[in-house]
């Protein structure tokens, strides 16, 4: 019988990620493990994962300005958000699902827990989308620029505008949930969730305005690449090839 391939992924680069406990973001303190993570042998369980496709996806899912299905269009600043999902060697990750959720232009989520504040809902906006990366690892969404919103972490706390991104990548070990922020947002230096990521890596979460993506008379364009933990060994092999 053919043997399965057990790929060896490089380390999850914990020094590039936030710590588990980050007291400025208060809720982390009691939800962070106190013991060290235990390293385990590489087995097929962790070197595989769901996919590439575990749910039905239609092209309409990538257009959040109309996917409420009401026939109407969402209100707000229409934006294109696109980029590539890459591995650590700069190679695109094809065929992986990218799932997103976000507030509407007023900073309100379509979620029963977001009801304390009287920010308006938009009947033509549900704030969720998904797409699959193409052969180059490229994803693309059409959406509305989300708004900032207040939260209860500390006095006068406001989350900077952001879009939640969820990716699986090729294995459960490459699982990543993160947030895309917007270049130039004055709330970024004040946000403990953004700042929980170390200083040398947090700017990797910022999408940049890109005039080449902007479509005339239609929507402004933002570029944001996402880098997933990836297999080790490819680096050495490709150097030999060169």
């Amino acid at each position, binding site marked *: 019988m053919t043997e399965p391939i057990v790929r060896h992924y490089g380390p999850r680069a914990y020094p590039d990620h936030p710590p588990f406990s980050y007291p400025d973001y208060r809720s982390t303190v009691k939800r962070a*493990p*106190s013991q060290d993570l235990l390293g385990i042998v590489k087995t097929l*369980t962790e070197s595989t994962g769901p996919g590439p496709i575990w749910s039905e996806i239609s092209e309409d899912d990538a257009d959040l300005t109309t996917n409420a299905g009401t026939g109407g269009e969402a209100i707000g600043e229409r934006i294109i958000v696109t980029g590539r999902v890459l591995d650590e060697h700069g190679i695109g990750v094809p065929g992986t699902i990218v799932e997103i*959720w976000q507030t509407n232009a007023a900073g309100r989520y379509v979620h029963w827990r977001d009801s304390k504040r009287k920010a308006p809902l938009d009947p033509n906006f549900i704030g969720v989308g998904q797409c699959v990366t193409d052969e180059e690892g490229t994803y693309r969404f059409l959406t509305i620029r989300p708004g900032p919103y207040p939260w209860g972490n500390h006095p006068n706390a406001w989350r900077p505008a952001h879009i939640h991104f969820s990716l699986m990548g090729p294995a459960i070990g490459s699982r*990543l949930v993160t947030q895309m922020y917007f270049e130039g947002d004055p709330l970024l230096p004040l946000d403990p969730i953004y700042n*929980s990521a170390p200083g040398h890596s947090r700017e990797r979460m910022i999408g940049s305005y890109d005039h080449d993506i902007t479509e005339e008379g239609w929507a402004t364009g933002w570029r944001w690449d996402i880098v997933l933990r990836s297999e080790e060994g490819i680096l050495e092999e490709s150097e030999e090839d060169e």
Partner: protein
Amino acid sequence: MTRHLGQTPSQTVGPFYSMRLAAEGDNVLPIPDGGQRIVVKGKVFDADGKHVEDALIETWQANPVGGYNHPDDLRELGQSREFTGFARAQTDFQTGEYRIETVKPGRVPDPEGEMQAPHIAMIIQGRGMLNPLFTRFYFSDELQANQQDIVLRAVPAGRRATLIATLDEGSDPPTYVFDVRLQGESETVFFDV
């Protein structure tokens, strides 16, 4: 020279992830040929023993004969499009309980060529959690296999019990309880996978 790019940092899923993740039905997998329906349920607890009301639970497992539905598993072990092996659930806001309906996984080889005990990998995320936590659970009615499992044997003996889902005797379908303790006494073993 090949570029080396830094990993994009992880962020919390926050309290609103259920808009997109863990939709109704994502916690129920179909029963493939030869599969035995089981239920796995439990709660996630914080450092104070308070249940986490908004955790995202994701599970990844082999099918009943030990095959993963993934391109790297080249063995032909009854993989089908229908049984993804992937489930998502959220803990209930009121009760704190998650529930997954799946099948008992088959055994999968370890790197030394022995068979691992039946297990299901789990990823736990939530508001106030800046990184995903990875663990696995095993089954309380697989004592002998558990004793020989390469991963379980590497866990300090005093902490192994945190990775065992306990069969609720007499339950139908067989129901296993697997609680996750994020911090403190009996803290679940989390892996650097």
